[in-house]
């Protein structure tokens, strides 16, 4: 067997410097996805006419097609339709694709989280003189957030990993750098294992943070 652990450790620093770009892709995409997903879930819950049909179409499309296809479509396809998008950078195209894709899943997660809050909570809030909006912001949303955190966290872990697909349109992120090192030295296994371990480390670290946060927000609900 021919495994050069020394080489793997040697290239780690050259890979670690790409963590920020990977996190940048994941975090910015997540923020946009939460906003879009939030709006879509409200449309689904309130069954706003017309908007609800459009939302369902959007959700169905972005859940029913591969992220990679969406990424290629947005980066190469959109400028063809809208020439003014010609100057879109690969990073921005990746963020658009990832956030659209993730938002479609989040819409369903948020919808379920909202509808699983007991209707009696809203009624009690309205009955004490709160407006519908105050009831939603002060009572329903905080409980819905708690319902949504575990599944939303899983989506974020998925995003961290999926961000590696950005290398296909030329974004130099963690995987792209690994590939570069691998082909330069032909030590493929060491390079890709190092890349894998870094992703693994990021997701484990994130899982710990989420566990801590879940424990914190679950406190009021535990007898």
């Amino acid at each position, binding site marked *: 067997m021919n495994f050069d652990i020394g080489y793997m450790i040697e290239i780690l620093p050259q890979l670690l410097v790409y963590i920020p770009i990977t996190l940048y892709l994941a975090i910015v995409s997540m923020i946009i996805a939460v906003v879009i997903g939030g709006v879509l879930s409200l449309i689904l819950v309130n069954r706003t006419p017309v908007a609800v049909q459009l939302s369902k179409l959007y959700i169905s499309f972005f859940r029913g097609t591969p992220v990679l296809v969406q990424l290629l479509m947005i980066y190469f396809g959109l400028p063809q339709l809208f020439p003014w998008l010609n100057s879109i950078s690969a990073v921005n195209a990746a963020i658009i694709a990832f956030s659209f894709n993730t938002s479609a899943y989040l819409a369903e997660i948020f919808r379920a989280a909202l509808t699983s809050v007991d209707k009696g*909570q809203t*009624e*009690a809030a*309205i009955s004490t003189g709160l*407006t519908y909006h105050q009831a939603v912001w002060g009572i329903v949303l905080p409980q819905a957030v708690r319902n949504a955190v575990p599944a939303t966290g899983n989506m974020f872990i998925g995003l961290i990993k999926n961000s590696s697909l950005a290398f296909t349109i030329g974004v130099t992120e963690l995987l792209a750098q690994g590939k570069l090192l691998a082909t330069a030295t032909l030590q493929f296994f060491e390079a890709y294992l190092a890349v894998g371990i870094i992703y693994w480390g990021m997701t484990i670290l994130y899982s710990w943070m989420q566990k801590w946060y879940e424990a914190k927000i679950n406190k009021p*609900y535990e007898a």
Partner: protein
Amino acid sequence: MIKVSGLKKAFKNTEVLKDINFEVKDGETVVIIGPSGSGKSTLLRCLNYLEKPDAGLIDIGDVSANTERVKKPTINKLRMQTSMVFQHYNLFKNKTVLGNITYPLTASKKFKKEEAVEIGEKLLGQVGILDKSKQYPVALSGGQQQRVGIARALAADPHAILFDEPTSSLDPEWVGEVLKVISDISKKEKTMIIVTHEMDFAKEIADRVIFMADGHIVEEGTPEEIFDNPENERTRKFLRKYTNHSGSIEEETIEPELVTV
């Protein structure tokens, strides 16, 4: 005063309230009894505008609403005139016991935080649960939760309090303490409408009793009139079911009136 006339409500095609008329004087305690499905909850929910009535006039305190053409600001004002105590308590799960009372006060009624806390602590003291003020609802027994629910309903000092079966989801051991709190409030001349299946309690607390069946008010009168000398056959039939076996409650059964072959 509460004055309801010609109140109607249907769900889809089933009429649940068919021309309801009654009055409640200031400080009066009115108990509504009647078989399951007769529309008691729907009536309370219409008064609090948790359901939108189809027709009828509702006057509560100094707010009058013609339910067929009432606008949002009036609905909001009308809603503020009453507050509900729910069968399943419906305490805000994300708020502490004290927060359940202060949040609505500070968020909607524009009370200052300190004022709200003062009101909250006073009411929690009244219902005997001040020591739990920092706890969350999940840590409380059913009886304790319902007492907080009552304190919350009192907090905004509404014109009237509406109780929808406040003890029927409680374990028997907690019923007494909640009924005691309600009867204490009743003595303070608060205007109250109580839907309950606790007949002994109804007899004791009510100034007036309303018997509902099938979306109608069938009969109303003093507790003595209704419980000891009911005029209507349906009232008699209903009450018999509660007194048959030394006061134990039986399931309401619908007797076949006419069998066609």
